[in-house]
């Protein structure tokens, strides 16, 4: 009796869903036809997302709770327990977070004046500057690392200049393969991306208000502080969130300059060691963390969605 009652409750909902599907497949009204078009337009992306994104990620979650190393069998949380209790992994997590946070702050702090100069000042050769600042966006992390070797490595130009003046051995002065060198390599990759986002924000700043402030005697600093800054603040928040994501995802740079053990590098080492459950758990934690803070960041701040 109760079962049939429940079925009777469920039935209209099921029928509704079936009718929805039916109207998409065999549309009768213009509204139905539009829905079918939207479904058709979204379908290719959805297929790619499921085949290349959702299903592989589910497999990662399954292996992370597997009892066996190479097969998905049983259920255990031991990989996650290792991540939480082992001080080694806690230190890796700590390294990852402070390093990405600090490089993000420095990169965005540099990107604000760069975007300001490019958008507000009439500089000679402005188009060239835009091209030059954007060029490193298409360089992979390994190339960014090589750029740091060129400047600060054992053979590096700046290393040799400093060594010549200080009368020291170049290898003692070289900083490329050190944590500060890695820091500069991160900033090399992140500044152009942060600048790209902030230039977009600057393009929407209302100039009339700035001109009014200037006309009323505000200094450039006051104009920036009280008129420009409030307008670009959502852009800065967005740039912070997305540059932080970039910083967390960096991996190639770390392959060349292996001086700091962060999450992505450790993940690769687990893979090489064949520790699939731990690697899977690390990937899952990473994905959930990044997804979570991006969603929260974009939901609860006025940041703009973008790359």
């Amino acid at each position: 009796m109760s079962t049939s009652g429940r079925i009777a409750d469920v039935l209209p909902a099921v029928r509704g869903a079936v009718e929805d599907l039916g109207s998409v497949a065999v549309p009768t009204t213009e509204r139905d036809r539009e829905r079918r078009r939207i479904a058709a337009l979204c379908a290719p992306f959805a297929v790619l997302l499921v085949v290349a994104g959702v299903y592989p990620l589910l497999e990662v979650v399954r292996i992370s709770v597997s009892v066996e190393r190479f097969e998905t069998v049983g259920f255990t949380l031991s990989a996650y327990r290792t991540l939480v209790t082992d001080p080694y992994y806690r230190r890796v997590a700590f390294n990852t977070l402070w390093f990405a946070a600090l490089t993000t702050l420095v990169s965005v702090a540099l990107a604000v004046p760069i975007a300001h100069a490019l958008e507000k000042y009439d500089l000679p050769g402005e188009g060239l500057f835009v091209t030059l600042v954007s060029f490193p966006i298409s360089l992979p992390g390994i190339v960014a690392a090589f750029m740091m070797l060129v400047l600060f490595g054992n053979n590096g130009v700046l290393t040799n200049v400093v060594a010549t003046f200080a009368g020291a051995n170049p290898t003692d002065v070289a900083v490329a393969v050190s944590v500060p060198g890695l820091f500069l390599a991160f900033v090399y990759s992140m500044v152009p991306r942060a600048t790209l986002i902030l230039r977009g924000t600057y393009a929407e700043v209302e100039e009339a208000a700035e001109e009014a402030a200037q006309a009323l005697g505000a200094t450039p600093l006051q104009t920036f502080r009280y008129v420009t800054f409030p307008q670009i603040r959502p852009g800065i928040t967005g740039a912070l969130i997305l540059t932080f994501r970039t910083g967390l995802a960096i991996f190639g740079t770390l392959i060349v300059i292996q001086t700091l053990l962060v999450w992505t590098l450790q993940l690769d080492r687990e893979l090489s060691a064949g520790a699939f459950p731990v690697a899977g758990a690390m990937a899952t934690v990473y994905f959930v963390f990044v997804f979570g803070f991006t969603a929260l960041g974009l939901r609860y701040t006025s940041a703009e969605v973008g790359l």
Partner: protein
Amino acid sequence: MTALSRRFGRPAVTLVLLVTVTFLIAPVALTIVGSFAREWTGVFPAGFVTFRNWAEVLGLADSIGSQRSMGWDPLVVLPVGDGLTLMAPAELLFSVGLALGGVLINLVVGVPIAYAVSRYEFRGKEWVNAVSVLPLVPGVILGVAFLRAYPVLSGTSFGLIVGYSLLKAPFMVMAVQSEFESMPLRQLEESARSLGASWPRTFLTVVVPNARSGIVSGAIICWTLAAAEFNFSYVVWAKGTQPLALFLQRHISNSTFTKAAAAVSMFFCIVVAITLLLQAFGTRGFDTRGT
């Protein structure tokens, strides 16, 4: 205090720009210069001009071991005389092809969803938009996922192409969407429909050609990023011809400094060349059809 920012504000901001641009571009220039040098042990590279580094990297001179250069594969056999075989450097060709494959998938999945979000109102639109423009999975994580889900397929060209296309799809959607948003989509669609074109025909022959500049720039961005993709390739690649980014990494880690400089410079050249090529090809291809 107030005079300070009036006096030094603009020079200080401009200085930050100049120093940063120097920091970004000076090593690029030094790398290109260094690739033509015989040795680079002092402050500046020395022993100009030699093409030996380039020749070795491109596989035109003999090299061994982990420093070995590109292999050469037959590309096409021309019907001249006994059949003249055109050869192409394998790694280069491989990466160009992989990235183009990724761009093709991006066109098929990216352009329609960008149109759906720009043109129509529907439930869950914000979510569809967020999912399509945010790069959700970083390369390393996607690599691990591919290894688990498709153990056989992940290391093949097909696996690499599919991975690249998912990783770079947001850039295509963003570029095309911003183009669509500057177009009067509703009028365009309704005019074409009222003149008797079916909806699929309207989309393919009216809407898409009109958005060509956004589509071409999206394709260029996706191509460059896919050709440079290292993280995903590094995790899934197993054997055979290496994608370009792995080839670069092998040289950076193992070769002499000048030779690594030649390999990296070659990459700079490719990025610039293909960008110009796609731009020229893209606009011409669409223009002849449009008029």
